[in-house]
């Protein structure tokens, strides 16, 4: 018994970072839930949390890839604002159909990413400088495009990107019964069903991976940790989805966010392209001498970032129902902070998608909670800054203690 306790403790210390992040998120949520008298986890506020943070999370996915490859992109806030402005001008002033606008905007973001990536990858100009330039250029271009004014509102079909909800597929009779049971005015069966499916999926993949690891003799998480972690995550998921179903169901952005997160988690962890990006971030010369086309990968990481920044710009504009010259201002800092809170290393080569997403939620919950409490923007900035420093300090402290 003694030895198992010791090894459990050892395991925890070695994986402090991963568990620490999850624990931090839960602690922050519990804290704000208590001090806001339960406002934080009201269905409407949970929905808001997703709507407010979706664009940060979407960009954090791209930023993680960029940072893992050993670069940084300071321009994403400006690009996001510029693409939103571009879409607004197309729809409102030029009367271009929404679908065409969306495609054109995504293409624009991709091209911007390609342009910046070209200088970083093929001319070896430090990404800090290229994207600092990009930050100024696109900030200026949005001002020029909008002539300093806000442009809006948008047609309903465009707003749906952000503020729409996935329609329920279950018959009204069933959902009414569920509404009565849960004591709420309405109940979205699809939302609850998705929650159950997601939990089943998490448990299934978790067990499958454990079976594989056991088969190949790979050291795995102790059983107790696996069970605890799975129970906590599943419980939280079911709780959130239940809350959503008693409100308006699953927001469209939540779907895009989850789908993108799953895609990028898979891409970074399970594919050759992901592996190669980690390798080049870890040692670009060794990667190159292993036949990896490092320039092309860096170029692609920026193209990808541009595309995601454009998508974020569309979602942001759709949510505000207007494009303003200030849209996306200083957002790059939140995105970068999310990735570093999530455990990525400044020097490249390490960091996980799920970490970046949790990091973004930590920032998001704090923003939201502090706003509910009516804490001024001045204190909010100070607190967020300190949290970022604390997270990275925790990382470094752990490493030096282990090393």
């Amino acid at each position: 018994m003694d030895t198992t306790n010791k090894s459990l403790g050892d395991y925890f210390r070695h994986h402090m970072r991963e568990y620490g992040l999850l624990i931090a998120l839960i602690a922050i949520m519990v804290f704000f839930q208590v001090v806001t008298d339960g406002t934080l986890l009201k269905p409407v506020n949970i929905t808001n949390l997703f709507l407010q943070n979706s664009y940060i999370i979407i960009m954090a996915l791209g930023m993680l890839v960029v940072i893992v490859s050993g670069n940084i992109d300071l321009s994403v806030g400006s690009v996001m604002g510029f693409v939103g402005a571009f879409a607004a001008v197309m729809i409102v002033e030029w009367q271009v159909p929404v679908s065409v606008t969306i495609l054109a905007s995504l293409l624009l973001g991709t091209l911007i990413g390609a342009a910046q990536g070209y200088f970083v990858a093929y001319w070896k100009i430090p990404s800090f400088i290229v994207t600092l330039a990009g930050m100024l250029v696109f900030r200026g271009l949005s001002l020029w495009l909008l002539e300093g004014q806000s442009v809006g509102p948008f047609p309903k079909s465009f707003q749906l990107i952000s503020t729409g909800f996935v329609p329920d597929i279950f018959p009204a009779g069933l959902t009414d019964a569920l509404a009565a049971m849960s004591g709420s005015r309405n109940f979205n069966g699809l939302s609850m069903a998705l929650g159950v499916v997601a939990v089943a999926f998490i448990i299934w993949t978790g067990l499958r991976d454990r079976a594989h690891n056991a088969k190949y003799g790979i050291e795995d998480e102790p059983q107790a940790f696996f069970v605890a972690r799975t129970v906590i995550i599943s419980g939280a998921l079911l709780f959130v989805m239940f809350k959503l179903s008693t409100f308006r169901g699953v927001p469209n952005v939540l779907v895009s966010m989850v789908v993108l997160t799953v895609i990028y988690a898979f891409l970074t962890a399970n594919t050759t392209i992901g592996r190669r990006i980690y390798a080049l971030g870890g040692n670009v010369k060794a990667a190159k001498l292993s036949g990896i086309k490092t320039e092309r990968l860096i170029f692609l990481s920026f193209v990808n970032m541009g595309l995601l920044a454009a998508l974020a710009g569309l979602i942001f504009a759709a949510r505000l129902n207007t494009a303003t010259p200030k849209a996306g201002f200083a957002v790059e800092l939140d995105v970068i902070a999310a990735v570093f809170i999530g455990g990525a290393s400044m020097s490249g080569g390490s960091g996980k998608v799920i970490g970046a997403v949790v990091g973004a939620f930590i920032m998001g919950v704090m923003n939201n909670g502090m706003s509910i409490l009516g804490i001024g923007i001045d204190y909010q900035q100070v607190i967020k800054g300190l949290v970022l420093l604390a997270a990275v300090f925790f990382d470094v402290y752990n490493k030096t203690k282990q090393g």
Partner: protein
Amino acid sequence: MTPLLEMRSITKTFPGVKALDQVNLQVMEGEIHAICGENGAGKSTLMKVLSGVYPAGSYEGEIHYDGQLAQFRDITDSEHRGIIIIHQELALVPLLSIAENLFLGNERAKNGVINWRETFARTEGLLKKVGLKEAPSTLIEKLGVGKQQLVEIAKALSKEVRLLILDEPTAALSEADSQALLDLMLELKTQGVTQIIISHKLNEVRRVADTVTVIRDGTSVSTTTAASGNITEDRIVRDMVGRDMSDRYPPRPRNPGDMLLEVSDWNVWHPEQAERQVISDISFNVRKGEVVGIAGLMGSGRTELAMSIFGRSYGRNISGRVRLKGQEIDVSRIDRAIANGLAYVTEDRKSLGLVLDETIRTNITLANLPAVSRSGVINENQETTIAEGYRGALNIRTPSVFQKVVNLSGGNQQKVVLSKWLFAEPEVLILDEPTRGIDVGAKFEIYGIINDLAAQGKGVLMISSEMPELLGMCDRIYVMNEGEFVGELTAEDASQERIMSLIVTE
């Protein structure tokens, strides 16, 4: 003679490992004392105990220095007493001048204002002492490794050194620079500087050392003095590995097969200096099952030749033809060179060969990911199986393939690099200094791997600065000097003298 330093029954334990076990070391005033041992034998740990990196109290045993019990708290403490270590990885600031580096942290200054006149004057004096003819204002980055090593020694001399410790000082030096350094050591000895040299190069040890202490598995095995006449390479090797190594190069049947790789009229220009030709009109070939060596001094262009062939990873305006089994192949990019059957094992495994923060498994599959993936999705289980296979086959000493390579010893790291290139299934392997900085036991294993490759019908092109290694391993040796091949010798005709004379006379 009296002992300057006596380390008695030093024992140092780390969690789970006894790194040093009752080690004794006695260094006489004014002698050059060599410490030999395989990597991981405990040489560096012993030097860290001596210099206070591991402070008094963190180890057992006693250190007596200059007649007193010494209890160093940290490295500055031991430096004050005149003990200075020059590490394998040089600790100079490349963008500062020689003078600035010499007095870094020890500036000739008053109230924080540097006295440049004194700094430069003293620098010139120190440079003269170590025989380095460079202006004190020369930037470190303009100097080669050999000269940087001399600057390190000058820096030690600036601190009133009594006991100078050199950790593998010639590991990165050319033959000529090594000789100059050894001469300097002998010169410093006449000036009364006691020195400890840690080295793998036994011929150098024999040349300068008055006494040799061999450490194996954390214990001191033997101490031999030159006066006794017993310092021989065979004896040192035997003490180091704990067994007789009558044959340092495992035997291999020599029967080269069909023509495999032919390189003809190869020309390469320097990547930055457009008018400078680095490789001129080189042609050579490697047959199936043949191990071909390239001998030459550092800077003769061996690495540049190899890298320019391997996907033009070095140089500009490259011209020439590469044929494999009679067919001309495209080696214009690294991925194409790999696809066409070439592999290049770099001389600099840490910065060019490995992603140090990644696991053994990740490193092994890196050059051939498609082989463990389908539609771009990696099959991690298959990957693990493959990595485990190489761990067993090449005897990589590690509890699991999920260890980060940064934690492995030099020899095991080199085996990981070799595994990576074996998994890429090349026809021809270019091995650039495949045994640099690794211990005798691991060297022997790597020679075995090379022989296995030859037996499988692969071609091996082996670049090495250690002539005995080339003579022991190769079927044929090309001799290279200043970017040209100046001779070709068969195994029977080759000798160190013939190779040197070819280099010198051309």
